[in-house]
């Protein structure tokens, strides 16, 4: 089967620093892959490259066979690649409802409607309410996001991801700053996305417990390059990884 996402010699340099250095990876449809590595290994830059936030210095990115290297972020999203950010990244003064509604509108290509009142698009409204139900925030739909707890804000983030109905989802530290209970919830949720909705997921995560419990595959990055790539048990056994990353 052809890989859903493919990077070919992908490179990004900031001056002399090679943040991502000739990285070639294939991601299969339906797979849940984690990318790990010490700080500065290039994980976030890789995400930025895939999602179009930064432009590659060299190399190519292909999604379902199409070259997306030079596309703008919004075009990449429209192709079906969604992203959830490391730091909660919502619209703080908009309500929960509105935060979820914007991506629904975007996916349904209704955002350029100039004169229709926002209450009038029935299918958009139903879809938004359905997603709010899924993330369990129907009760709080009229509250602005900056008034939510951290955990609820992460939930809204996931709601946004659902609203986009991505084929591939980039998750940047989804459990960052969460307590153990919230983390378990999140793990369950991510696994649900992967298994029930068949969304391909790439994950950057520091919590090794999470990584090893949910990943189909783990990629280890170090200094901009890939040093290991395999199933969780293979990675656990890999000496180089222990040396470079696990440090024991």
């Amino acid at each position, binding site marked *: 089967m052809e890989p859903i996402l493919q990077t070919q010699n992908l490179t990004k340099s900031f001056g002399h620093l090679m943040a991502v250095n000739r990285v070639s990876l294939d991601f299969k449809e339906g797979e849940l892959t984690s990318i790990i590595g010490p700080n500065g290994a290039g994980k976030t830059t890789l995400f930025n490259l895939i*999602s*179009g*936030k930064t432009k590659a210095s060299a190399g190519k990115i292909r999604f379902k066979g199409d070259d997306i290297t030079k596309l*703008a*972020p*919004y*075009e990449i*999203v*429209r192709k079906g690649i*969604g*992203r959830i*950010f490391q730091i909660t*990244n*919502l*619209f*703080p*003064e*908009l309500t929960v409802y*509105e*935060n979820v*509604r*914007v*991506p629904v*509108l*975007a*996916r349904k290509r*209704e*955002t*350029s*409607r*100039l*004169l*229709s*009142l*926002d209450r009038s*698009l029935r299918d*958009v409204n139903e879809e938004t309410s359905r997603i709010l139900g899924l993330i369990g925030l129907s009760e709080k739909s009229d509250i602005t996001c900056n008034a939510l707890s951290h955990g609820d804000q992460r939930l809204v983030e996931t709601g*946004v991801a659902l609203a*986009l109905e991505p084929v591939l989802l980039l998750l940047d530290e989804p459990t960052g700053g969460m307590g153990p209970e919230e983390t378990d919830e999140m793990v369950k949720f991510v696994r649900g996305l992967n298994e029930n909705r068949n969304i391909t997921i790439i994950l950057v995560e520091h919590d090794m417990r999470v990584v090893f419990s949910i990943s189909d595959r783990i990629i280890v990055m170090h200094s901009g390059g890939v040093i290991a790539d395999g199933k969780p048990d293979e990675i656990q056994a890999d000496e180089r990884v222990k040396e470079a990353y696990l440090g024991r």
Partner: protein
Amino acid sequence: MEKSRSIIWGKNRFYGVALALLALVLVPFFLSDFLVVFATEMLIMVLFALSFNLLFGYTGLLSFGHAAYFSIGAYGTGLFLSRVSPSLLLAFLIGIVFSFIVAFLIGYFCVRLDEIYFAMLTLAFGMMVHAILWKWDSLTGGADGLVGIPRPKFSILLATIEFSSIPGYYYLTLVVVGICVFILWRVSRSPFGLVLKSIRENHERVEFLGIAMRRYRLGAFVISGTFCGVAGALFAPFERSIAPDISFWTKSAEPVFMSLLGGTKVFFGPAVGASLFMYLREIISGYTELWMIYLGAILIAFVIFLPGGILGFISDKLNAGRRGT
């Protein structure tokens, strides 16, 4: 619960708008000519401020060059009326189309920048428009501007309406501003308006929702500039003479203050701010030549005590009340 509240609110709003409209229609019957003239100018500035705020309060872009579109609307209309044909409708169209084009050209470059750099680039373009209006004297009359712009009759089918009288022009302004404000209000409540608000909140994130952020910014810029052009188009026959001063950056600063005074995040905030700003300026300057001291003190006090603007403050209170119940 949700529904019943929105119906009540909706009803209240309907009555409120109807009442305000009725009051506005009756203005010439109860107020002196001066106040009618003043109200006409106020309406024009309300439209100026509201359309400016579509970009500022909704999209989060502080433009310091909106006098450009205002003055292009005014010059386009004024030139057409005094040089080509005394047809008000065509003249308005010309003014509006020109401000649309100019807003598009300028906006194309500006929407790439953020924050203060955006503000400074709009200032730069605004002042270039100012320089052109000033220096292209064969067309614009140079520093003297256009003198003696006629206020022609307005003919629809068989009816002819006289606009040269003070109440006549007031009603014309009221109708045009009313229509524009309604359109702007619909835009602000539309999916497009919601996208603008989300751009204001977090313009980088919007891109990652699959939205071509700059196009929406440009859209907001052009709509905002065009409606400023409508305000300008109304202004030219209102003033009878227009000079390049109306494109100077101090004119661009006016809607900024008006919006901030009234509250940028509430649709009608800038309207309240515009009325208050003009009223204060007119009233204080009637009492003392030192009106700037008062205006300055009011501005400072606002920033320190009421940063949300007047309507912002009131709606905060209302929301707090609602949340409390």
